């Protein structure tokens, strides 16, 4: 396509926008390979900070916590979110439109509000803060995202496929597992990857509901930053960014897949 005249400034604008979005991250990734301890000047390439990172037992411990939380939250929120989305899609009941409408609410509620309300909730029901509470909190904020993705997939599904299955002798459960789930699978996997990423990256809510000894990677970075920015932090951040980008790209691909 030719770009001319009026549209020329628009392409510069778009370019500038992307630069603004990605340049800081690129700089961060670049400096995670910098020999210099002081992050502002480039002195040469090194893997040193990554090696130091994987030798730090506290970082490894935080990584372990993050993985446990993200995996468990991903599994639970995907199952619950998928079933809830299906229930909302499949059955007619009073107040259905209300339920459909407030689906977005948790997504737009400020995380800090969610975090504080969860802490109060946990204290009220006398649950000790720790990995368990982080998982519960993450499941809670993952569910609306899972539901949104699965719902989009459901709306694109051919309803007669389920009828065809029942027509051929499959009861409701068999139809759900043999026909509905396979149809939704790309959406479900995309939702799971997104849930994993959101959970793995979360700082604010985790900050409130984490207890002693349940530090996750984002919390660890925060505590390291308070002692000063180091290339080690750059390296850790670069790793988190890479994992997120990879997972989200896969999720995006899956969602676009039509069949």
């Amino acid at each position, binding site marked *: 396509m030719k770009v001319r005249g009026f549209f020329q400034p628009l392409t510069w604008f778009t370019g500038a926008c992307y630069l603004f979005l990605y340049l800081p991250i690129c700089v961060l990734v670049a400096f995670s390979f910098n020999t210099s301890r002081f992050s502002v000047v480039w002195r040469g390439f090194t893997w040193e900070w990554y090696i130091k990172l994987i030798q730090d037992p506290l970082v490894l411990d935080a990584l372990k916590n993050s993985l446990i939380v993200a995996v468990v939250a991903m599994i639970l929120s995907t199952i619950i979110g998928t079933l809830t989305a299906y229930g909302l899609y499949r059955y007619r009941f009073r107040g259905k439109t209300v339920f459909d409408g407030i689906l977005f609410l948790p997504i737009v509620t400020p995380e800090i509000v969610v975090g504080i309300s969860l802490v109060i909730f946990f204290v009220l029901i006398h649950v000790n803060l720790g990995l368990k509470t982080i998982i519960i909190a993450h499941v809670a904020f993952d569910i609306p995202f899972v539901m949104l993705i699965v719902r989009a997939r459901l709306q694109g599904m*051919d309803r*007669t*496929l389920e*009828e*065809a*299955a*029942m*027509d*051929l*002798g*499959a*009861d409701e459960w*068999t139809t759900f597992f*043999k*026909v509905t789930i*396979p*149809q939704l699978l790309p959406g479900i996997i995309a939702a799971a990857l997104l849930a994993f990423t959101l959970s793995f990256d979360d700082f604010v809510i985790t900050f409130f509901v984490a207890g002693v000894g349940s530090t996750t990677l984002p919390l660890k970075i925060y505590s390291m930053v308070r002692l000063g920015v180091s290339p080690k932090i750059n390296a850790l951040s670069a790793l988190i960014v890479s994992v997120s980008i990879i997972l989200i790209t896969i999720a995006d691909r899956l969602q676009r897949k039509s*069949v």
Partner: protein
Amino acid sequence: MDVSVELKGVTKRFDEVTAVDNVSLKIRRGEFFSLLGPSGCGKTTTLRLVAGFEHPSEGKILINNADVSNKRPYERNVNTVFQNYALFPHLTVAGNIQFGLERKRTPKDEMLRLVVEALDLVRLNYMGDRYPHQLSGGQQQRVALARALILRPEVLLLDEPLGALDLKLRKEMQLELKSLQEKIGITFIYVTHDQEEALTMSDRIAVMETGRLAQVGTAEEIYEYPKTRFVADFIGESNFFSGKITAIDDNHLYLITDGGLKITLPADKAHTAGQHINFSVRPEKFRVEPEPGTSDWENQFIGEIVNKIYLGESIHYVIALSAKENINVFLKKERSGPQKTVFSIGDKVHVSWHRDDSVILVD
């Protein structure tokens, strides 16, 4: 009569709409039965009621003399060929076809044999490993058919199964479906809005009008003796007249139309002199001649050609019989005989038709 499916006073309402309105029907075992009617008249809903996707608001549905009104679709010995085929995209052709057998826990080797047999029946041998999106529309249609037939249902329901195919393939599949049905002897309930399709394929046809049955009968009964103006108009084409009965004897009914034509009809005991009635005449029933004399049919009038449309195998004339009455006439072009003449607009012609070709309508 060996009844396969029976509807007893079935009504289905959706909120405001009454989609099916007090329908009673008996369909014989092994019959090719069509539901015919314009869009929105309730054909699909009737089919879905039999399949079990909808439940009647009133009335009963019996399959093989057992009341199934409240049974789930998987509890009924009925299978459906959907209009969009509804093939499972994540399964192969064989996977689709054996889906029903798997639900019945048919042993592996028997299943394999039946699938090969079914593929053979619909002439899709060696296509078992393909996925639905790798097939043409006609092939997908056959897979849908095989998938439903492999379970040997009491009744096969087909909702405009040929609707998505092009005209030529459609004609081919019509013949194929019909001979297949005769071969396996399963009751077919076939939904279509294509009257030609219904006339050529069906043993009996039910014409539906806004949720009600307008008429049930063989193709010939419905075409030759439509009961209502709706049926006469929907199936083929018709000329409609209305008039006042002047006299009735044992064999004849005489009337004078609104336009002043004196017409002789077959006797009908249900009517009395002085009554106002409607009747119709099919456009191919007329004889049109340049001179009077050769026709000895009761109804003879002089008309004037007011329009002429060339249709290929025949010519469509519009002829004015009176100030108020124009008729549509289809004439075959014959090389000899009384109809060898081709008329042009403005010609005076002698039009005649036999009294039995006037069909008295109920409304």
